[in-house]
């Protein structure tokens, strides 16, 4: 009887090489290691559990099919995250084509309301414990439009530069800067309003 190899102690690089040779067990271990992160990224962009599940599953299937193209320029986790981000963006584009312009888009085109927002002078997150802070950030992110949230997620959580975000989203660097500025100002206002609600 042939024993199944133990993949749990292998590195990502070793697992990728084994998976490239057709070892499904090695690929399953990669899925187990990174599945939460990939799902979390899909959820942060889509804000919908079912869509996030479907897209993260699709990302894993795509990565298996394209594994031979992965040359190790970045970590496997980063490569996988890029795949799921692209799938989410495709899905958001399809959805955008089906709906009318959002208020945020109209704001953006007409000059935006972010420039009229008063500056938040106090730090709205000061003194909050981490769990509460994360909860508030998540709540505030949920209030943003997909376009603004995506730019913020890619810049702050994926640490992408403006140029890379523009390439990924298929827009100009100017649009990235403008969306990021709006998203940050809106986040500051939302976090400040949560703090005000607390103090009442």
């Amino acid at each position, binding site marked *: 009887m042939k024993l199944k190899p133990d993949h749990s102690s292998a590195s990502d690089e070793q697992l990728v090489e084994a998976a490239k040779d057709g070892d499904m067990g090695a690929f399953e271990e990669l899925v*187990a290691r990174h599945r*939460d992160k990939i799902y*979390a990224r899909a959820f*942060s962009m889509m804000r919908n559990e079912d869509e996030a599940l479907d897209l993260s*599953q699709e990302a894993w299937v795509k990565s298996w099919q394209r594994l031979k193209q992965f040359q190790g320029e970045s970590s496997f986790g980063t490569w996988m995250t890029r795949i799921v981000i692209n799938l989410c963006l495709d899905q958001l584009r399809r959805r955008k084509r089906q709906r009318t312009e959002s208020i945020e888009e109209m704001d953006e085109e007409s000059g935006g309301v972010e420039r009229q927002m008063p500056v938040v002078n106090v730090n709205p*997150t000061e003194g909050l414990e981490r769990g509460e802070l994360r909860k508030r950030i998540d709540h505030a992110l949920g209030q943003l439009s997909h376009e603004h949230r995506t730019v913020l997620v890619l810049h702050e959580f994926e640490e992408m530069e*403006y140029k890379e975000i523009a390439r990924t989203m298929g827009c100009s660097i100017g649009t990235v800067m403008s969306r990021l500025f709006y998203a*940050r100002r809106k986040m500051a206002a939302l976090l400040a309003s949560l703090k005000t609600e607390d103090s009442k």
Partner: protein
Amino acid sequence: MTDQEAQLKLQAFMDGELSVRETSEVRDLLERNPEARALLAELRNTKAALAGNEAECRLPESREFFWSKIEREIQRSSRPARPVVSQSWFAWFRRHLLPVSGIALVSCLLALAALRSGGSSAQMGEMELNADDMSSYTYRDQQQKITMVWLSDRNEDSQFTEKSGLASVTSE
């Protein structure tokens, strides 16, 4: 501070996306403009709040179940497409002509039977009988090797002119 370009440059300054020359321009602006300093402080607070504070999110399915879906999808997508079977003349005949020929043959036989029955085919074609109104009797003659089926209509208001008739005679 309402100049959009200046605001975006302020943000790019914070993100380290400006050239050396532009960085020094923004530094000058910050020295002389308190609104620019206040806006930069707000942007920095937001950036700092977000850093490393993304909400934790776990996939709501077990490892085994999630993997089983992926594995199934991989196997499905890697399955070779069904080859197109080259259709032989016989296969084409069997698929298209045979059913048509069968229908034509049955139609011919029915038409022939109608003609032989002496022009009453129209009436036969219109018959619609309810099984509850009908009764049948079967007679079999072993010597003659004949089976006769006699049908009769129990309904008084029957539309048929004759209330009963011989339905079939079969000889062996």
